[in-house]
Every structure is written in C-alpha cells, then in structure tokens.
C-alpha cells in the first residue's frame, strides 16, 4: 500500500465516521425553507414586475395621448356636415341681437325728458343751479336744455295730462319708431319700465339729467355674441413639440439611515460639495397651458474629500479570494489586487488615504408635468418685444448609477505606496424620486425661449442595496436652459 493510499484511507475513515455524527435536517423543514426562499424570490420578482408594469402603463398612456393628439389635430379639416350646424347657430345669433336692440330703447327715454320741460315752459334746472350755486361749465348747457328737446317736433306734448309719469309712459311708446317693427319692442316698453327709467330724472338733480347723454357708452355684450366668438385654431403636432437643453448646479445632501450596528463601519464623507446637471428634455403640449416632458439627465454628485483621513483595511474573502474592500456609504469598492506588490494574504493589511473628492454619477430620466399659470406679452414703447411665462411643474424621476470615481493613495505593509483610482463600486442601486420646480420663461426669438427654474429633487429609494444602511440623496438647485419649438 502506497503512502497516498494510506492517506486516502486515513482521510476517508475520518470523513465517514464524523459525517455519521451529522443529523440531516428533516426533509419537511428543508422543503419549507426552500419554499420560503422561492416565495421570497417570487415576491421580489413580482414587485419588480409591478414597477415595470407601471412604467409600461405610463409610456403607453404617453404614446397613446400623443397618437390621439396627432390624429385629432391633423384630421381637423372641415368636412361637409359641420357647416350645417354652424348655420343654425347663426340664426340663433340673430334672435339675440334683436334683444340687444330692445335694451338700447331705454337710452332714448331721457331725450323725451327734455320735451317735458318745454311743455311746462319752465326750466327746473335753472332753479336747481341757482339754489346750489354750482360753477359747473356744463351749467350753460343745462340752461339751454329746453331748446334742445323743444326741437323735437315728433313729441306729442299737448295731449297728455298733468301727471308727468303718465305722459312719459305713453310717449315712450311712440319714441321708438325704429323698433315698432320688432315684435319684441312693444311688450318690453311697458309703462312700469318707463316709469322706472324716468325716476332718476326727478330724484338725482342735475346729474340725473346729464347722465342719459352718456348712456350710449353703456357696455353691454349679449351672451349670444360671446358664445359665437370663434375659438382658437387647433395646434398642430409640430406646434406642440419642443426640445430643451439645460444645465444647472444643485446643493445636495444625503440622508443616511443606518439600520444595523454594522453600518457604522462604512466610511465616506456624507457631505456633498457640489452637484452638476446636464440634460435634454422633450415636451409635448397637452393643452395650451399643460405640458408633459420626458428627459435624460447626467448628474454628478461630488462628495467632499475626507481631508487625507487614513483607513486601515483588512482583506475579506470575495469569490474565494482574499481582497481588500473599501466600504463606503455609496457602495463597496474593491482595491485592484493586480496593482499591489503581491497577492493579498488574509494576514496582510493596507492603509487607504482619500486623496480627492468622491464622484458618483447617475443618469436620470425625469417625467414632468408643467402648467403655465401666467402668460403676458411684454411691451416697450407700444411694441411687443417678448412673452413672459410663469409656470410650475411636478413629476418623478428614475435614476440609474453610471459611474463612481475615488482617487486614493495606498500604503502597503512592505513600505510601498502608490496612487490608484477606485471605480468598480458594488452595491449601488437605481433610485426613484420626485421633483418640484417653478420657473420663468422668456421668448428670445420666434421659436427659442430661455428659461430658468429653481427645483427640488428627492429620492424615496436608496442609492445602495444589500448593505446595512440606506442612502437617500436630495437636492435643491437652479437650472437654466434654452427651449426650441418645432413650430410656433
């Protein structure tokens, strides 16, 4: 028997006899755990599918809305049947216009009041003017009033009784020769209404006499005219579309929630020194004031340097390999072993020093609804120079990690030190969030607008996963950009 056989026999004996000590778990228990595992994985997959369904639903709504809008406004060519309906509306307008003329009848009443003065051959205005001692330049006119109504030869002044009210009432019916052909004129000019029209003449003094001469300026707009006002022409698809390019700076912070005690062993500065955003977005006008936009943004969070803080790292087993891992609140980065002077052993250690800012990049897809609540043309010397629009917008965003970069200096136990860049961060996760903004838009040229908007972004999912902590970024910032309308 060779030495190898002896060794194998020795090992097998140990293995067999000790494995006999092991009590295998009851199959039912193992099956239960396995079933729980599958249920957990199924629940997680279902949750992901639910999100995907939501996104797909939103996209379908957006595409469907665009399609309906496109079809509706491109097929808005007049066809045979609608003009018939329009003709009917025209007839209705005529009826309402007749009512409008009936209203103007009241204006004519004060003219008759002058005739009343001529009949009595006395001027009540003169007394009133004398007693009140007014210096109104219209007083001459007031004194001449009897001459003016006296010229009215059509006024039947002698047939009426002493009652002024009765005379006015009867005469008013004769004072509307133009309206006599109107079927609505007679019923409208009832004695009661005439009396009501005359009352101001006897109770308001001189002002009451002059007021009727200014009454023709009365502003009355019949409802039928307002209703018949033509609506704005429909927008074409090209008029609805716009593209914006923009940039901005944000003041960001991260909210770290450490769920377990292990979380305190994760390093990294939690202060974000700056955040820069570059983006492009496409907007579609749903109505004249409401617009939905979808965009793409590249956002870089720059975390402050740890001021040359040194961290001692111990190797960990990653994929059965001893590996140095830098654990930060933004994910775990593996120190590239090939740059070390020798493969790391479990007993080794290295010191890591932060040399620069930590940059974490994200790509964001925002979906935003914008409402224009104020829009006015700006004039200068009577000429329109631009349009100014104030708007508010709200929406959500989906962000996915694109890159991370951290420059460090590493000190090996044998005295060697070198610089490297950690880029392969793990445990990062896509984020979902919401945003609010308000802005001002100014027209620069026919199709180009400049806009500036303060905005607030906050995520409600963590930017790291499978770690004992959760990291939520939020930011407030100012963005500005140019918007190009495909047609205006």
């Amino acid at each position: 028997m060779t030495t190898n056989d002896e060794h194998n026999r020795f090992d097998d004996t140990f293995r067999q006899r000790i494995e006999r000590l092991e009590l295998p778990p009851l199959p039912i228990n193992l099956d239960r755990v396995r079933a729980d595992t599958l249920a957990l994985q199924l629940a997680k997959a279902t949750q992901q599918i639910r999100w995907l369904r939501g996104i797909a639903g939103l996209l379908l709504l957006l595409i469907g809305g665009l399609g309906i809008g496109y079809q509706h406004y491109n097929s808005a060519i007049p066809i045979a049947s609608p003009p018939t309906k329009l003709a009917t509306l025209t007839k209705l307008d005529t009826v309402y216009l007749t009512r409008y003329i009936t209203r103007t009848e009241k204006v004519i009443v004060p003219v008759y009041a002058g005739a009343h003065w001529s009949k009595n051959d006395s001027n009540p205005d003169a007394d009133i003017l004398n007693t009140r001692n007014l210096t109104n330049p219209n007083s001459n006119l007031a004194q001449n009033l009897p001459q003016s109504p006296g010229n009215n030869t059509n006024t039947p002044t002698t047939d009426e009784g002493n009652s002024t009210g009765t005379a006015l009432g009867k005469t008013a019916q004769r004072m509307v020769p133009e309206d006599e052909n109107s079927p609505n004129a007679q019923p409208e000019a009832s004695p009661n209404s005439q009396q009501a029209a005359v009352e101001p003449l006897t109770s308001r003094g001189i002002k009451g006499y002059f007021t009727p001469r200014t009454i023709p300026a009365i502003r009355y707009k019949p409802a039928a005219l307002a209703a018949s006002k033509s609506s704005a022409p429909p927008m074409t698809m090209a008029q609805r579309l716009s593209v914006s390019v923009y940039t901005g700076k944000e003041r960001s912070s991260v909210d770290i929630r450490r769920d377990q005690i292990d979380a305190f062993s994760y390093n990294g500065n939690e202060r974000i020194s700056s955040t820069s955003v570059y983006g492009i977005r496409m907007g579609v006008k749903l109505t004249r004031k409401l617009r939905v936009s979808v965009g793409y943004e590249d956002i870089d969070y720059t975390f402050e340097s740890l001021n040359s803080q040194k961290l001692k790292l111990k190797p960990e087993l990653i994929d059965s390999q001893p590996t140095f891992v830098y654990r930060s609140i933004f994910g775990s980065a593996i120190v590239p072993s090939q740059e070390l002077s020798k493969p790391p052993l479990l007993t080794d250690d290295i010191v890591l020093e932060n040399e620069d800012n930590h940059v974490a990049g994200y790509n964001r897809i925002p979906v935003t609804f914008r409402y224009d609540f104020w829009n006015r043309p700006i004039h200068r010397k009577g000429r329109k120079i631009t349009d100014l629009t104030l708007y508010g917008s709200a929406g959500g965003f989906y962000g996915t990690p694109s890159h991370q970069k951290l420059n460090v200096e590493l000190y090996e136990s044998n005295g060697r030190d070198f610089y490297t860049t950690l880029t392969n961060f793990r445990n990062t996760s896509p984020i979902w969030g919401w945003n609010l903004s308000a802005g001002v838009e100014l027209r620069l040229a026919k199709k180009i607008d400049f806009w500036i908007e303060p905005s607030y972004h906050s995520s409600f999912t963590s930017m790291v996963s499978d770690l004992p902590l959760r990291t939520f970024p939020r930011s407030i910032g100012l963005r500005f950009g140019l918007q190009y309308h495909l047609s205006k």
Partner: protein
Amino acid sequence: MLVVCSRYVRVQSEAEDLLQEGFIKLFRNLHTYRSEGSFEGWIRRIMVNICLQHFKQTIQNLPHITVDKLYEDLSFTDEPDIIEMINAEQLLTLIQELPPAYKAVFNLYVFEGLKHREIAEQLGIGEGTSKSNLQDARRLLQRKIARLNQEAKPIR
C-alpha cells in the same frame, strides 16, 4: 450543520454561535439563492464560510506555535488501524484540538473536498504551505490516536 461548525472550533459553544450566525446570514440572503446546485450544499457552503471568517479573525490573536514544539510531547507509533478503535466523538475532539491553521486545511481538504490550490486561495497561503499543513495535521492526528490507544491499553 452543528458538526460542520464544530470541526472548525475547539469549544462546542463557539460552534453553536457560528451556527446561529450562519443561519442569520442564510435567512438574510435567502433572496440571493439562485437555484444552482442543491439547497443543502448552499447552506453548508455558508456555514463553512462563516467558520473560515471566524478562523481568520481569531488566527491573528493566537500565539505562534511551531510544529517541532507540537511534536515534542508526542511519541511515534506505527500502528495503522488504531483509528478504527476510536469512536466518532473522540475523532471530532482530536480535530478540534488541532492548531487552527492545520485544522482549517484538514477540514477543507478532507471534508469539503477542496484542492490545495483552492485551499491556498481561500486561506491566503501558499499551495506548498497547504500541503505541508495537511501532512502535519495527519501526523499530529495519528500520534494523538496512538497516545489515546496507549492510554486505553491495560497496564501489564
């Protein structure tokens, strides 16, 4: 699984702690199981990893013991079949009493079926070191078994 953990530590209570830690890790990472291979094998692998982590944490605090010193108090024996006469609990105790480095290599080679190259990667040691540690572990076990046998023999 308790026996798996017991092979890597000296004291039973330590093995129970590792078992508990292993199951906590198992339940926290249930969603990462990808149904590749048997479920039991996956659980066993987690337990072994927990034990190796424990080994790495404790090995730095242990005093350095040279092999020569270990051999001093053991007399050589060439009785090959003595092992058959010892029960399984005693064999487990013998493994537990091995120095940590030997114990880890012996367990990984004999019970987990790893090659020397894989053991070297796992423990961060050289392949040659793994081989020599295994040889030393076997020799130590043989001698301990022999001593047990001598103690068990009636005095004539």
